[in-house]
């Protein structure tokens, strides 16, 4: 789901970096305004960035491609605003250590994945209430599902709208849909996983949720 180097025109890469710089600045500013303990912010972001990096080693074959867990939703609900810089760092490590994504496309990739994480966190906060039983799983499920689906749709849209110069609009739209459909099993699995982890953490340590 990461866009490699060379796929996007330089103008799009520069715009991606500009957007990422703004969102990273905003995230750090918002995170600092909500907590004074910078050690806590940095340490949590690092653990989640490391987890984000490690899960990309897990490959799930969905022919003709293979996908890997994203954890955007989980990062959003655990880190809130700081999920964006954490994803940015995780993506940098993935690009540097095994060539997932790239350096010129780091800004764009951070925007698609980090933006999805922030929106997933927003969805979680909107839906979170005092429900019991199965209903208590809904906010986490929606966050996990949203994290993957939005990341795929953002990535697919950028790829298809920027690379090919003379491609039929109908084919472009169908391709975005096909890409999202290929990731649907992963989105559902991440939805269930995020829901169960969120419920577990709400029971054991509710203070760790953003």
């Amino acid at each position, binding site marked *: 789901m990461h866009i490699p*180097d060379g796929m996007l*025109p330089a103008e799009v890469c520069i715009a991606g970096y500009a957007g990422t710089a703004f969102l990273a*600045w905003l995230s750090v500013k918002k995170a600092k305004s909500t907590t004074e303990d910078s050690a806590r912010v940095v340490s*949590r972001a*690092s653990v989640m960035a490391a987890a984000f990096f490690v899960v990309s080693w897990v490959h799930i074959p969905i022919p003709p491609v293979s996908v890997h867990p994203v954890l955007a939703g989980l990062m959003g609900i655990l880190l809130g605003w700081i999920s964006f810089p954490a994803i940015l*760092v995780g993506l940098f490590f993935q690009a540097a250590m095994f060539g*997932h994504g790239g350096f010129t496309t780091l800004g764009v990739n951070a925007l698609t994945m980090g933006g999805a994480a922030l929106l997933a966190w927003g969805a979680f906060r909107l839906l979170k209430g005092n429900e019991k039983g199965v209903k208590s799983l809904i906010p986490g499920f929606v966050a996990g599902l949203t994290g993957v689906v939005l990341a795929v749709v953002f990535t697919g849209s950028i790829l298809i709208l920027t690379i090919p110069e003379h491609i039929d609009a109908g084919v472009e739209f169908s391709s975005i849909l096909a890409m999202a459909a290929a990731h649907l099993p992963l989105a559902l699995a991440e939805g269930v996983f995020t829901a169960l982890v969120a419920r*577990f953490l709400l029971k054991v340590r509710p203070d760790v949720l953003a």
Partner: protein
Amino acid sequence: MCWHEMLTNYRMKLFEDWDTTLKVPSLFLLMMSMAFIRDQRLMFLLPSIAAILFTTSGIKLSLLLSRFRAPVLFLLFVSVFLILFSEGETLFRIGPFALKSRGVTLALNTSVRVLCIITVGIVMVNTTPLAGLSGKLQKMRIPKILVDIGILTGRYIMVIGEDFRKMRASRKLRGYVPGKSISQRFRVIVPTAATLLLRGFQQSEMVFNAMHMRGYGNTVSSTAVSDQPERPSRFNMIMFFSTLAMSAVLIVLEVSLEAG
């Protein structure tokens, strides 16, 4: 040590000696200018530049090829899409599929660009020494919070993998074996992952506090950011300006060919 090894080590050292604060921005700019190239007539320049940098860096070919694995799969996917769905003249047909000439050109250009930029990226990363990197990143105006997250993430990647291995082993010893059904697997995996995260949060807070107590980010050491700007050596300036010149040539040629 044979002459080939000596030559490789010398070339590695050449790139490692190149100051990170000059090397990273100039190679990054080169990668961006390569991404700027769209004209087919300039495509031959990209492999030439990438080949020069790769051979002078002394990086092993096996490392380069191993880093190509992930993007090549993606590239194949995009190439097939471009070849089949581009508009224009049909080269030939295979059953219901029509291979378009414009699509083939686009796919070739994209492949060259992707592989060359990745090569430059590999040279940049693999010739950058880790010692004193945090200070140099701050010198390059990377925000301190991002540098801190990066340093701690680097340390934590190994720890989280090791913790996961230990927890899996102890879980097995206590008889918690994941079943075949998805719900059984989730019942075992979810508490393990959540506990791992909680433990990770606690451990990393301790590690971060310990790093600060030992002076991380507070003292000025030989590797930390200095208030006195250092004068770059002649070698550094030559490397820096020659890389900038390559970027400039690429951009100027692309703009002039586009205008013409």
